[in-house]
Protein backbone atom coordinates (compact mmCIF):
# COMPACT_ATOMS: atom_id res chain seq x y z
CA UNK A 1 0.00 0.00 0.00
CA UNK A 2 1.45 3.36 -1.01
CA UNK A 3 -0.32 4.60 2.06
CA UNK A 4 2.56 3.28 4.08
CA UNK A 5 5.11 5.53 2.44
CA UNK A 6 3.20 8.65 3.42
CA UNK A 7 2.68 7.30 6.89
CA UNK A 8 6.35 6.55 7.37
CA UNK A 9 7.33 9.94 6.08
CA UNK A 10 4.76 11.71 8.21
CA UNK A 11 5.54 9.94 11.44
CA UNK A 12 9.26 10.37 10.86
CA UNK A 13 8.76 14.09 10.30
CA UNK A 14 6.88 14.29 13.57
CA UNK A 15 9.59 12.25 15.26
CA UNK A 16 12.20 14.70 14.03
CA UNK A 17 10.07 17.58 15.28
CA UNK A 18 9.94 15.99 18.71
CA UNK A 19 13.52 15.00 18.86
CA UNK A 20 15.26 18.11 17.54
CA UNK A 21 14.85 20.32 20.62
CA UNK A 22 15.91 17.44 22.85
CA UNK A 23 18.92 16.78 20.68
CA UNK A 24 19.81 20.43 20.96
CA UNK A 25 19.72 20.17 24.73
CA UNK A 26 21.90 17.07 24.73
CA UNK A 27 24.23 18.82 22.33
CA UNK A 28 24.59 21.77 24.66
CA UNK A 29 25.12 19.63 27.71
CA UNK A 30 28.39 18.38 26.32
CA UNK A 31 29.74 21.83 25.50
CA UNK A 32 31.50 24.42 27.57
CA UNK A 33 29.84 27.77 28.05
CA UNK A 34 32.45 29.46 25.91
CA UNK A 35 31.64 27.22 23.02
CA UNK A 36 27.91 27.72 23.48
CA UNK A 37 28.11 31.46 23.55
CA UNK A 38 30.81 31.60 20.93
CA UNK A 39 28.71 30.45 18.04
CA UNK A 40 26.37 27.83 16.77
CA UNK A 41 27.80 24.37 16.34
CA UNK A 42 25.78 21.32 15.44
CA UNK A 43 27.79 19.03 17.63
CA UNK A 44 30.30 19.70 20.36
CA UNK A 45 33.66 20.77 18.96
CA UNK A 46 35.25 20.47 22.36
CA UNK A 47 33.40 17.58 23.87
CA UNK A 48 33.30 17.87 27.64
CA UNK A 49 31.77 15.99 30.52
CA UNK A 50 32.39 18.83 32.93
CA UNK A 51 28.75 19.80 33.25
CA UNK A 52 27.73 16.31 34.23
CA UNK A 53 30.68 15.94 36.57
CA UNK A 54 29.67 19.10 38.32
CA UNK A 55 26.14 17.88 38.84
CA UNK A 56 27.18 14.51 40.15
CA UNK A 57 29.68 15.93 42.55
CA UNK A 58 27.74 18.88 43.89
CA UNK A 59 25.19 17.91 46.55
CA UNK A 60 23.03 20.95 45.93
CA UNK A 61 22.53 19.61 42.44
CA UNK A 62 22.22 15.89 42.82
CA UNK A 63 20.18 16.17 45.95
CA UNK A 64 17.63 17.92 43.80
CA UNK A 65 17.17 14.73 41.83
CA UNK A 66 17.11 12.64 44.93
CA UNK A 67 14.48 14.87 46.49
CA UNK A 68 12.32 14.73 43.40
CA UNK A 69 12.54 10.96 43.18
CA UNK A 70 11.78 10.63 46.87
CA UNK A 71 8.60 12.62 46.80
CA UNK A 72 7.46 11.01 43.57
CA UNK A 73 7.85 7.60 45.18
CA UNK A 74 6.09 8.68 48.35
CA UNK A 75 3.29 10.10 46.27
CA UNK A 76 2.96 6.85 44.37
CA UNK A 77 2.92 4.80 47.55
CA UNK A 78 0.27 6.93 49.20
CA UNK A 79 -1.78 7.17 46.05
CA UNK A 80 -1.87 3.43 45.52
CA UNK A 81 -2.50 2.68 49.18
CA UNK A 82 -5.52 4.96 49.22
CA UNK A 83 -6.82 4.51 45.72
CA UNK A 84 -6.85 0.72 45.57
CA UNK A 85 -9.45 0.15 48.30
CA UNK A 86 -11.49 3.10 47.10
CA UNK A 87 -11.47 1.91 43.50
CA UNK A 88 -12.51 -1.53 44.69
CA UNK A 89 -15.44 0.01 46.54
CA UNK A 90 -16.55 1.97 43.48
CA UNK A 91 -16.17 -1.06 41.29
CA UNK A 92 -18.01 -3.61 43.42
CA UNK A 93 -20.50 -1.74 45.54
CA UNK A 94 -23.30 0.74 45.33
CA UNK A 95 -23.44 3.02 48.30
CA UNK A 96 -25.02 6.20 49.38
CA UNK A 97 -23.65 9.13 47.43
CA UNK A 98 -21.29 7.02 45.34
CA UNK A 99 -21.88 8.81 42.05
CA UNK A 100 -21.58 12.22 43.63
CA UNK A 101 -18.41 11.26 45.41
CA UNK A 102 -16.89 9.98 42.20
CA UNK A 103 -17.60 13.16 40.28
CA UNK A 104 -16.44 15.34 43.14
CA UNK A 105 -13.17 13.47 43.17
CA UNK A 106 -12.74 13.99 39.45
CA UNK A 107 -13.57 17.66 39.69
CA UNK A 108 -10.46 18.20 41.73
CA UNK A 109 -8.47 17.40 38.64
CA UNK A 110 -9.96 20.56 37.17
CA UNK A 111 -8.67 22.83 39.90
CA UNK A 112 -5.90 25.20 38.89
CA UNK A 113 -2.88 24.42 41.07
CA UNK A 114 -2.23 28.15 41.31
CA UNK A 115 -5.41 28.45 43.33
CA UNK A 116 -4.02 26.15 45.97
CA UNK A 117 -0.62 27.75 46.22
CA UNK A 118 -1.27 30.05 49.05
CA UNK A 119 -3.59 27.87 51.12
CA UNK A 120 -1.26 24.90 50.79
CA UNK A 121 1.66 27.06 51.78
CA UNK A 122 -0.09 28.14 54.93
CA UNK A 123 -1.64 24.76 55.61
CA UNK A 124 1.52 22.75 55.42
CA UNK A 125 3.46 25.40 57.29
CA UNK A 126 0.98 25.32 60.09
CA UNK A 127 1.23 21.56 60.53
CA UNK A 128 5.00 21.75 60.41
CA UNK A 129 5.31 19.93 57.13
CA UNK A 130 6.75 22.78 55.15
CA UNK A 131 9.87 21.86 53.22
CA UNK A 132 9.37 18.12 53.55
CA UNK A 133 9.03 15.47 50.88
CA UNK A 134 5.82 14.39 52.50
CA UNK A 135 4.26 17.80 51.93
CA UNK A 136 4.88 17.73 48.22
CA UNK A 137 3.78 14.13 47.98
CA UNK A 138 0.55 14.90 49.80
CA UNK A 139 -0.10 18.03 47.81
CA UNK A 140 0.24 16.09 44.59
CA UNK A 141 -2.15 13.49 45.95
CA UNK A 142 -4.97 15.94 45.49
CA UNK A 143 -4.60 15.43 41.77
CA UNK A 144 -3.13 11.96 41.54
CA UNK A 145 -5.53 10.13 43.84
CA UNK A 146 -8.71 10.93 41.88
CA UNK A 147 -6.92 9.99 38.68
CA UNK A 148 -5.70 6.74 40.23
CA UNK A 149 -9.17 5.86 41.49
CA UNK A 150 -10.60 6.49 38.05
CA UNK A 151 -8.02 4.39 36.22
CA UNK A 152 -8.04 1.55 38.74
CA UNK A 153 -11.83 1.40 38.84
CA UNK A 154 -11.82 0.92 35.10
CA UNK A 155 -9.41 -1.99 35.30
CA UNK A 156 -11.11 -3.53 38.30
CA UNK A 157 -14.46 -3.49 36.58
CA UNK A 158 -12.88 -5.70 33.97
CA UNK A 159 -12.42 -8.46 36.55
CA UNK A 160 -15.72 -10.29 37.04
CA UNK A 161 -17.20 -10.38 40.52
CA UNK A 162 -17.30 -14.16 40.30
CA UNK A 163 -13.57 -14.19 40.97
CA UNK A 164 -14.15 -12.55 44.33
CA UNK A 165 -16.93 -14.95 45.19
CA UNK A 166 -14.91 -18.02 44.34
CA UNK A 167 -12.08 -16.79 46.51
CA UNK A 168 -14.39 -16.41 49.47
CA UNK A 169 -15.82 -19.84 48.92
CA UNK A 170 -12.28 -21.17 48.87
CA UNK A 171 -11.78 -19.64 52.26
CA UNK A 172 -9.66 -16.58 51.50
CA UNK A 173 -9.94 -13.66 53.86
CA UNK A 174 -10.44 -10.30 52.21
CA UNK A 175 -6.85 -9.01 52.65
CA UNK A 176 -5.39 -12.29 51.42
CA UNK A 177 -7.72 -12.38 48.44
CA UNK A 178 -6.96 -8.77 47.62
CA UNK A 179 -3.21 -9.16 47.74
CA UNK A 180 -2.73 -12.62 46.31
CA UNK A 181 -5.47 -12.93 43.74
CA UNK A 182 -6.95 -9.58 42.86
CA UNK A 183 -3.92 -7.35 42.55
CA UNK A 184 -2.03 -9.66 40.19
CA UNK A 185 -5.05 -9.61 37.90
CA UNK A 186 -4.98 -5.85 37.58
CA UNK A 187 -1.23 -5.61 37.19
CA UNK A 188 -1.63 -3.55 34.00
CA UNK A 189 -3.87 -1.15 35.79
CA UNK A 190 -1.36 -0.62 38.54
CA UNK A 191 1.35 -0.13 35.93
CA UNK A 192 -0.73 2.47 34.13
CA UNK A 193 -1.55 4.25 37.38
CA UNK A 194 2.10 4.30 38.35
CA UNK A 195 2.93 5.78 34.97
CA UNK A 196 0.38 8.57 35.25
CA UNK A 197 1.28 9.34 38.87
CA UNK A 198 4.89 9.57 37.88
CA UNK A 199 3.97 11.62 34.84
CA UNK A 200 2.19 14.18 36.93
CA UNK A 201 4.33 14.30 40.01
CA UNK A 202 7.73 14.29 38.37
CA UNK A 203 6.89 17.10 36.01
CA UNK A 204 4.98 19.47 38.23
CA UNK A 205 6.86 22.55 39.36
CA UNK A 206 4.63 25.11 40.95
CA UNK A 207 3.49 23.28 44.04
CA UNK A 208 6.78 21.47 44.46
CA UNK A 209 8.66 24.72 44.53
CA UNK A 210 6.21 26.53 46.74
CA UNK A 211 6.18 23.93 49.45
CA UNK A 212 9.93 23.45 49.72
CA UNK A 213 12.90 25.62 50.41
CA UNK A 214 16.08 23.79 51.33
CA UNK A 215 15.63 20.26 52.58
CA UNK A 216 13.32 18.89 50.00
CA UNK A 217 14.06 21.17 47.09
CA UNK A 218 13.28 19.42 43.86
CA UNK A 219 15.53 19.50 40.85
CA UNK A 220 13.07 21.71 39.03
CA UNK A 221 13.40 24.43 41.64
CA UNK A 222 17.17 24.21 41.61
CA UNK A 223 17.21 24.56 37.87
CA UNK A 224 15.04 27.64 37.86
CA UNK A 225 17.38 29.33 40.24
CA UNK A 226 20.55 28.88 38.29
CA UNK A 227 20.88 32.43 37.25
CA UNK A 228 24.19 33.50 38.71
CA UNK A 229 26.01 36.78 38.63
CA UNK A 230 27.82 35.81 35.45
CA UNK A 231 24.61 35.01 33.67
CA UNK A 232 23.03 31.67 33.01
CA UNK A 233 25.29 28.63 33.06
CA UNK A 234 23.86 27.11 29.92
CA UNK A 235 25.94 23.97 29.79
CA UNK A 236 25.12 23.09 33.36
CA UNK A 237 21.48 23.83 32.84
CA UNK A 238 21.41 21.66 29.75
CA UNK A 239 23.07 18.75 31.54
CA UNK A 240 20.63 19.04 34.41
CA UNK A 241 17.76 19.04 31.94
CA UNK A 242 18.99 15.98 30.12
CA UNK A 243 19.25 14.13 33.42
CA UNK A 244 15.61 14.87 34.18
CA UNK A 245 14.48 13.29 30.94
CA UNK A 246 16.14 9.96 31.62
CA UNK A 247 13.88 8.73 34.46
CA UNK A 248 10.87 9.43 32.25
CA UNK A 249 12.22 7.35 29.42
CA UNK A 250 13.07 4.52 31.81
CA UNK A 251 9.58 4.51 33.32
CA UNK A 252 7.79 4.51 29.99
CA UNK A 253 10.00 1.73 28.71
CA UNK A 254 8.98 -0.47 31.60
CA UNK A 255 5.28 0.15 31.33
CA UNK A 256 5.02 0.50 27.56
CA UNK A 257 2.71 -2.46 27.12
CA UNK A 258 0.41 -1.45 29.94
CA UNK A 259 0.20 2.16 28.89
CA UNK A 260 -1.35 1.31 25.57
CA UNK A 261 -4.11 -0.51 27.43
CA UNK A 262 -4.52 2.34 29.86
CA UNK A 263 -4.95 4.95 27.20
CA UNK A 264 -7.37 2.55 25.56
CA UNK A 265 -9.72 2.94 28.46
CA UNK A 266 -9.63 6.61 27.68
CA UNK A 267 -8.91 7.36 31.26
CA UNK A 268 -6.28 9.96 31.64
Amino acid at each position, binding site marked *: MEDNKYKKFGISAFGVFLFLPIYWLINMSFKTNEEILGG*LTLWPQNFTLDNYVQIFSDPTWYMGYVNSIVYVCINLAITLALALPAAYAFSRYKFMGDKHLFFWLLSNRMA*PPAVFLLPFFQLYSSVGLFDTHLAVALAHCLFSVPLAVWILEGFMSGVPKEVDEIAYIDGYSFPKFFLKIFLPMIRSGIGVTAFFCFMFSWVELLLARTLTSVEAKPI*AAIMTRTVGAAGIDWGLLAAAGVLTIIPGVVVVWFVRNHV*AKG*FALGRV
Partner: protein
Amino acid sequence: MNKVQNNKAWFLVLPVFALVAFSAIIPIMTVVNYSVQDIFDQNNAYFVGAEWYREMLSSPRLLDSLLRQFGFSFAVLAIQIPLGIGVALMMPAKGRMAAVWLIIVAIPLLIPWNVVGTIWQVFSREDIGLFGWSINAIGIDYNYASSPIAAWITVVLMDVWHWTSLIALLCYSGLRAIPEAFYQAARIDRASRWAVFRYVQLPRLRSVLIIGVLLRFMDSFMIYTEPFVLTGGGPGNSTTFLSQELTKMAIGQFDLGPAAAFSLIYYLIVLLVCYLFFTIITHQDKVK
Protein backbone atom coordinates in the same frame (compact mmCIF):
# COMPACT_ATOMS: atom_id res chain seq x y z
CA MET B 1 -21.22 -5.58 36.81
CA ASN B 2 -23.99 -6.12 39.26
CA LYS B 3 -22.98 -4.02 42.19
CA VAL B 4 -24.13 -4.90 45.63
CA GLN B 5 -25.67 -2.20 47.75
CA ASN B 6 -23.53 -1.88 50.82
CA ASN B 7 -22.96 1.33 52.68
CA LYS B 8 -20.09 -0.21 54.59
CA ALA B 9 -18.09 0.34 51.42
CA TRP B 10 -17.63 3.86 52.73
CA PHE B 11 -14.88 2.48 54.96
CA LEU B 12 -12.88 1.63 51.89
CA VAL B 13 -13.42 5.05 50.46
CA LEU B 14 -12.89 6.99 53.67
CA PRO B 15 -9.12 7.47 53.44
CA VAL B 16 -9.41 8.92 49.95
CA PHE B 17 -12.31 11.08 50.95
CA ALA B 18 -10.45 12.35 54.01
CA LEU B 19 -7.31 13.19 52.12
CA VAL B 20 -9.02 14.95 49.26
CA ALA B 21 -11.36 16.75 51.58
CA PHE B 22 -8.46 17.87 53.69
CA SER B 23 -6.48 18.94 50.66
CA ALA B 24 -9.34 20.51 48.83
CA ILE B 25 -12.03 21.69 51.16
CA ILE B 26 -9.88 23.31 53.80
CA PRO B 27 -7.80 25.28 51.33
CA ILE B 28 -10.87 26.32 49.39
CA MET B 29 -12.50 27.48 52.53
CA THR B 30 -9.38 29.42 53.40
CA VAL B 31 -9.44 31.01 50.01
CA VAL B 32 -13.09 31.91 50.33
CA ASN B 33 -12.32 33.35 53.71
CA TYR B 34 -9.53 35.52 52.40
CA SER B 35 -11.50 36.58 49.41
CA VAL B 36 -13.94 38.51 51.50
CA GLN B 37 -11.47 40.22 53.76
CA ASP B 38 -8.98 43.02 53.50
CA ILE B 39 -5.89 41.67 55.17
CA PHE B 40 -3.16 43.94 56.38
CA ASP B 41 -1.42 41.49 58.59
CA GLN B 42 -2.12 38.66 60.98
CA ASN B 43 -4.24 40.72 63.27
CA ASN B 44 -5.69 43.34 61.04
CA ALA B 45 -8.30 41.95 58.78
CA TYR B 46 -11.59 43.53 57.88
CA PHE B 47 -14.60 42.02 56.25
CA VAL B 48 -15.19 43.69 52.93
CA GLY B 49 -17.82 41.48 51.39
CA ALA B 50 -17.76 41.27 47.65
CA GLU B 51 -15.45 44.21 47.14
CA TRP B 52 -12.53 42.18 45.91
CA TYR B 53 -14.77 40.32 43.49
CA ARG B 54 -16.01 43.55 42.05
CA GLU B 55 -12.54 44.89 41.78
CA MET B 56 -11.17 41.77 40.13
CA LEU B 57 -14.01 41.44 37.66
CA SER B 58 -13.51 44.98 36.51
CA SER B 59 -9.74 44.96 36.63
CA PRO B 60 -8.33 45.51 33.16
CA ARG B 61 -5.25 43.56 34.11
CA LEU B 62 -7.33 40.54 34.92
CA LEU B 63 -9.54 40.82 31.90
CA ASP B 64 -6.54 41.20 29.63
CA SER B 65 -5.01 38.06 31.09
CA LEU B 66 -8.30 36.28 30.64
CA LEU B 67 -8.45 37.26 27.01
CA ARG B 68 -4.89 36.19 26.40
CA GLN B 69 -5.63 32.95 28.16
CA PHE B 70 -8.62 32.13 25.99
CA GLY B 71 -6.66 33.07 22.92
CA PHE B 72 -3.86 30.77 23.93
CA SER B 73 -6.11 27.85 24.76
CA PHE B 74 -8.01 28.07 21.51
CA ALA B 75 -4.85 28.45 19.48
CA VAL B 76 -3.22 25.37 20.93
CA LEU B 77 -6.38 23.29 20.74
CA ALA B 78 -6.88 24.25 17.13
CA ILE B 79 -3.45 22.90 16.29
CA GLN B 80 -3.09 20.00 18.70
CA ILE B 81 -6.35 18.21 17.98
CA PRO B 82 -5.98 17.78 14.22
CA LEU B 83 -2.25 17.22 14.52
CA GLY B 84 -2.73 14.66 17.28
CA ILE B 85 -5.30 12.76 15.22
CA GLY B 86 -2.98 12.86 12.24
CA VAL B 87 -0.06 11.51 14.24
CA ALA B 88 -2.23 8.73 15.66
CA LEU B 89 -3.24 7.72 12.14
CA MET B 90 0.38 7.59 11.08
CA MET B 91 1.71 5.57 13.99
CA PRO B 92 2.26 1.91 13.13
CA ALA B 93 -0.41 -0.34 14.55
CA LYS B 94 1.67 -3.38 15.24
CA GLY B 95 5.13 -4.81 15.00
CA ARG B 96 8.36 -3.87 16.68
CA MET B 97 8.24 -0.29 15.53
CA ALA B 98 4.87 0.21 17.18
CA ALA B 99 6.40 0.09 20.68
CA VAL B 100 9.31 2.27 19.62
CA TRP B 101 7.10 5.00 18.22
CA LEU B 102 4.85 4.79 21.25
CA ILE B 103 7.81 5.63 23.44
CA ILE B 104 9.13 8.36 21.16
CA VAL B 105 5.74 10.04 21.05
CA ALA B 106 5.33 9.73 24.81
CA ILE B 107 8.63 11.37 25.75
CA PRO B 108 7.58 15.05 25.65
CA LEU B 109 4.90 14.21 28.21
CA LEU B 110 7.45 13.03 30.71
CA ILE B 111 9.77 15.98 30.79
CA PRO B 112 9.51 18.26 33.83
CA TRP B 113 7.64 21.33 32.76
CA ASN B 114 10.41 23.73 33.64
CA VAL B 115 12.80 21.71 31.50
CA VAL B 116 10.34 22.02 28.63
CA GLY B 117 10.49 25.74 29.13
CA THR B 118 14.28 25.67 29.27
CA ILE B 119 14.55 23.52 26.16
CA TRP B 120 12.50 25.96 24.15
CA GLN B 121 14.12 28.96 25.73
CA VAL B 122 17.43 27.74 24.49
CA PHE B 123 16.17 26.35 21.22
CA SER B 124 14.53 29.58 20.16
CA ARG B 125 17.24 32.03 20.98
CA GLU B 126 18.91 33.52 18.03
CA ASP B 127 22.38 33.27 19.52
CA ILE B 128 22.53 29.79 20.99
CA GLY B 129 19.46 28.05 19.63
CA LEU B 130 19.17 26.06 16.43
CA PHE B 131 15.62 27.16 15.76
CA GLY B 132 16.10 30.85 16.52
CA TRP B 133 19.32 31.02 14.59
CA SER B 134 17.85 29.22 11.56
CA ILE B 135 14.83 31.48 11.34
CA ASN B 136 17.01 34.55 11.51
CA ALA B 137 19.40 33.05 9.00
CA ILE B 138 16.67 32.83 6.37
CA GLY B 139 15.92 36.48 6.80
CA ILE B 140 13.00 36.60 9.22
CA ASP B 141 13.53 38.82 12.21
CA TYR B 142 12.83 36.62 15.16
CA ASN B 143 13.42 37.44 18.81
CA TYR B 144 10.94 36.22 21.35
CA ALA B 145 12.32 38.41 24.08
CA SER B 146 11.45 41.61 22.33
CA SER B 147 8.62 40.84 19.95
CA PRO B 148 5.22 39.87 21.35
CA ILE B 149 4.31 38.06 18.15
CA ALA B 150 7.48 36.01 18.22
CA ALA B 151 6.87 35.31 21.89
CA TRP B 152 3.34 34.09 21.17
CA ILE B 153 4.47 31.91 18.31
CA THR B 154 7.18 30.39 20.44
CA VAL B 155 4.88 29.73 23.37
CA VAL B 156 2.24 28.11 21.16
CA LEU B 157 4.85 26.09 19.32
CA MET B 158 6.27 24.90 22.61
CA ASP B 159 2.87 23.80 23.84
CA VAL B 160 2.16 21.99 20.59
CA TRP B 161 5.49 20.21 20.91
CA HIS B 162 4.74 19.36 24.50
CA TRP B 163 1.16 18.19 24.43
CA THR B 164 0.19 16.99 20.96
CA SER B 165 1.42 13.58 22.07
CA LEU B 166 -1.38 13.33 24.60
CA ILE B 167 -4.03 13.62 21.90
CA ALA B 168 -2.00 11.35 19.67
CA LEU B 169 -1.77 8.62 22.30
CA LEU B 170 -5.44 8.86 23.21
CA CYS B 171 -6.47 8.60 19.57
CA TYR B 172 -3.95 5.85 18.94
CA SER B 173 -5.52 3.65 21.57
CA GLY B 174 -8.97 4.54 20.31
CA LEU B 175 -7.97 3.42 16.84
CA ARG B 176 -6.57 0.14 18.11
CA ALA B 177 -9.98 -0.65 19.54
CA ILE B 178 -11.59 -0.75 16.11
CA PRO B 179 -12.11 -4.35 15.00
CA GLU B 180 -10.44 -5.32 11.75
CA ALA B 181 -13.79 -6.34 10.27
CA PHE B 182 -14.82 -2.69 9.94
CA TYR B 183 -11.83 -1.94 7.75
CA GLN B 184 -12.45 -5.10 5.77
CA ALA B 185 -16.07 -4.23 5.19
CA ALA B 186 -15.08 -0.74 4.10
CA ARG B 187 -12.65 -2.21 1.60
CA ILE B 188 -15.34 -4.42 0.16
CA ASP B 189 -17.64 -1.41 0.03
CA ARG B 190 -14.96 0.34 -2.02
CA ALA B 191 -14.68 3.22 0.42
CA SER B 192 -12.07 5.87 -0.24
CA ARG B 193 -9.37 6.62 2.34
CA TRP B 194 -11.23 9.73 3.37
CA ALA B 195 -14.52 7.84 3.69
CA VAL B 196 -12.84 5.25 5.90
CA PHE B 197 -11.57 8.02 8.16
CA ARG B 198 -14.86 9.87 8.26
CA TYR B 199 -17.23 6.94 8.70
CA VAL B 200 -15.20 4.24 10.42
CA GLN B 201 -12.46 5.91 12.43
CA LEU B 202 -13.74 9.32 13.44
CA PRO B 203 -17.00 8.12 15.02
CA ARG B 204 -15.02 5.73 17.16
CA LEU B 205 -12.60 8.42 18.21
CA ARG B 206 -15.37 10.61 19.45
CA SER B 207 -15.26 9.54 23.09
CA VAL B 208 -11.49 9.75 23.42
CA LEU B 209 -11.49 13.08 21.64
CA ILE B 210 -14.02 14.49 24.07
CA ILE B 211 -11.76 13.54 26.95
CA GLY B 212 -8.74 14.84 25.08
CA VAL B 213 -10.28 18.22 24.31
CA LEU B 214 -11.53 18.60 27.85
CA LEU B 215 -8.16 17.77 29.35
CA ARG B 216 -6.22 19.94 26.98
CA PHE B 217 -8.53 22.84 27.52
CA MET B 218 -8.27 22.57 31.29
CA ASP B 219 -4.54 22.10 31.33
CA SER B 220 -3.83 24.85 28.85
CA PHE B 221 -6.09 27.13 30.83
CA MET B 222 -4.08 26.44 33.96
CA ILE B 223 -0.65 26.59 32.37
CA TYR B 224 2.06 28.23 34.38
CA THR B 225 5.55 26.80 34.38
CA GLU B 226 6.43 26.49 30.73
CA PRO B 227 5.60 29.99 29.56
CA PHE B 228 7.00 31.36 32.80
CA VAL B 229 10.37 29.77 32.16
CA LEU B 230 10.34 30.58 28.49
CA THR B 231 9.27 34.21 28.41
CA GLY B 232 8.65 35.12 32.03
CA GLY B 233 5.32 36.45 30.84
CA GLY B 234 6.85 38.94 28.51
CA PRO B 235 7.79 40.88 26.66
CA GLY B 236 5.86 43.11 29.02
CA ASN B 237 2.56 41.40 29.63
CA SER B 238 2.09 39.83 26.27
CA THR B 239 2.42 36.22 27.35
CA THR B 240 1.18 36.53 30.89
CA PHE B 241 -1.68 34.10 31.27
CA LEU B 242 -4.05 33.62 34.14
CA SER B 243 -2.03 31.35 36.38
CA GLN B 244 0.95 33.58 36.24
CA GLU B 245 -1.13 36.65 36.93
CA LEU B 246 -2.58 34.93 39.97
CA THR B 247 0.75 33.71 41.24
CA LYS B 248 2.25 37.15 40.92
CA MET B 249 -0.55 38.53 42.98
CA ALA B 250 -0.60 35.84 45.63
CA ILE B 251 3.04 35.08 46.20
CA GLY B 252 4.67 38.10 44.73
CA GLN B 253 2.61 40.82 46.16
CA PHE B 254 0.96 38.96 48.99
CA ASP B 255 -2.28 40.67 48.27
CA LEU B 256 -4.22 37.91 49.86
CA GLY B 257 -7.72 39.25 49.54
CA PRO B 258 -7.73 40.10 45.87
CA ALA B 259 -5.66 37.03 45.08
CA ALA B 260 -8.16 34.83 46.82
CA ALA B 261 -11.06 36.38 44.98
CA PHE B 262 -9.19 35.98 41.72
CA SER B 263 -8.51 32.33 42.58
CA LEU B 264 -12.14 31.54 42.99
CA ILE B 265 -13.14 33.36 39.86
CA TYR B 266 -10.46 31.37 38.02
CA TYR B 267 -11.68 28.05 39.39
CA LEU B 268 -15.24 28.89 38.56
CA ILE B 269 -14.40 29.81 34.98
CA VAL B 270 -12.70 26.47 34.47
CA LEU B 271 -15.62 24.58 35.97
CA LEU B 272 -18.10 26.58 33.98
CA VAL B 273 -16.45 26.02 30.64
CA CYS B 274 -16.05 22.30 31.38
CA TYR B 275 -19.66 22.06 32.41
CA LEU B 276 -20.83 23.85 29.26
CA PHE B 277 -18.69 21.67 27.05
CA PHE B 278 -19.95 18.54 28.71
CA THR B 279 -23.57 19.58 28.50
CA ILE B 280 -23.30 20.42 24.83
CA ILE B 281 -21.75 17.07 24.05
CA THR B 282 -24.25 15.02 26.03
CA HIS B 283 -27.09 17.09 24.59
CA GLN B 284 -25.88 16.24 21.11
CA ASP B 285 -25.92 12.58 22.07
CA LYS B 286 -29.52 12.83 23.22
CA VAL B 287 -30.64 14.65 20.12
CA LYS B 288 -29.32 11.84 18.01
